């Protein structure tokens, strides 16, 4: 758990650096979540990692979310979980993606662990990560069509690779 004091420092530093791009700050049971502008995701992430006091040197996860029929401000979102191994504090960044073809800047250039996380989000939700070095499917097989964790994907629709036995 990140202490209140640390949370305040993180929020204050981010707000002073990116006054326009920090849209909402929430605290759920001690976990800090910051809603940010998706255009600024790369700059914010680079700052979170390189700033000496924040020092978020570990990217724990990148997730996609589909808010179809959930009365959300946008259909898709990406969620980043960061942790600082030195400072022992963590933060969650979230950005809404407005388009039908959701696009966001890749953070692979900052954390190498983003590579496979982003491929997973691309595979299952169809979220495009700009400037990703190798944005291919990672979990489903290469002959798969569509993005199965989208809420409008028919969950029983399959893409068998071997011909059915007679």
């Amino acid at each position, binding site marked *: 758990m990140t202490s209140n004091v640390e949370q305040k420092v993180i929020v204050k530093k981010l707000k002073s650096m990116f006054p326009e791009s920090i849209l909402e700050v929430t605290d759920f049971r001690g976990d800090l979540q910051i809603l940010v502008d998706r255009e600024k995701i790369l700059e914010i992430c680079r700052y979170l990692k390189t700033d000496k006091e924040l020092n978020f040197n570990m990217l724990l996860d990148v997730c996609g979310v589909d808010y179809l029929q959930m009365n959300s401000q946008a259909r898709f979102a990406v969620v980043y979980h960061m942790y600082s191994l030195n400072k022992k504090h963590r933060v969650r960044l979230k950005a809404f993606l407005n388009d039908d073809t959701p696009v966001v800047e890749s953070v692979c250039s900052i954390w190498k662990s983003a590579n496979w996380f982003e491929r997973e989000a691309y595979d299952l939700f169809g979220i495009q990560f700009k400037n990703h070095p190798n944005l291919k499917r990672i979990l489903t097989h290469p002959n798969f069509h569509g993005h199965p964790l989208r809420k409008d994907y028919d969950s029983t629709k399959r893409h068998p690779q071997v011909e*059915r*036995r007679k």
Partner: protein
Amino acid sequence: MENIFTTQLDKLISWGQRNSLWPLPFGTACCAIEFMSFVSSHYDVARFGAEVVRFSPRQSDLMIVAGTITDKLAPALKKIYDQMCEPKWVISMGACASSGGFYRAYHVMQGIDEIIPVDVYVPGCPPAPESLFDALLKLQEMIKKGGREKVLRG
């Protein structure tokens, strides 16, 4: 005279086949852990002559598919099955291999009999080793009666 000799020889071959099945474990999930008990000393499949577990399809004649088979893995399963020499048999172990189990979903094959023929299905999630022994004995009975085709035709 010749006919009598052939039938007797068939019986002898069938006796040899059913009492020395060499299993190939195609284990992908928790069923494979149960399979380990099935093979190891406490339950000991050696009592039924099927203890020579081989991890090469070329050296085994009983494929035990133990676990979930996804569409992504299906080509590998089919290829390994095709590499096994005749005569060969298949036991589908557990709910996932037999019907997809609780994975009624976009990525899992709804039973391996979509792509390879199955001799005995074992229900359970995972089945206890006793169930697998039951399947083995059923399979031995089938081989004694002349194989799957003959048993199904009655």
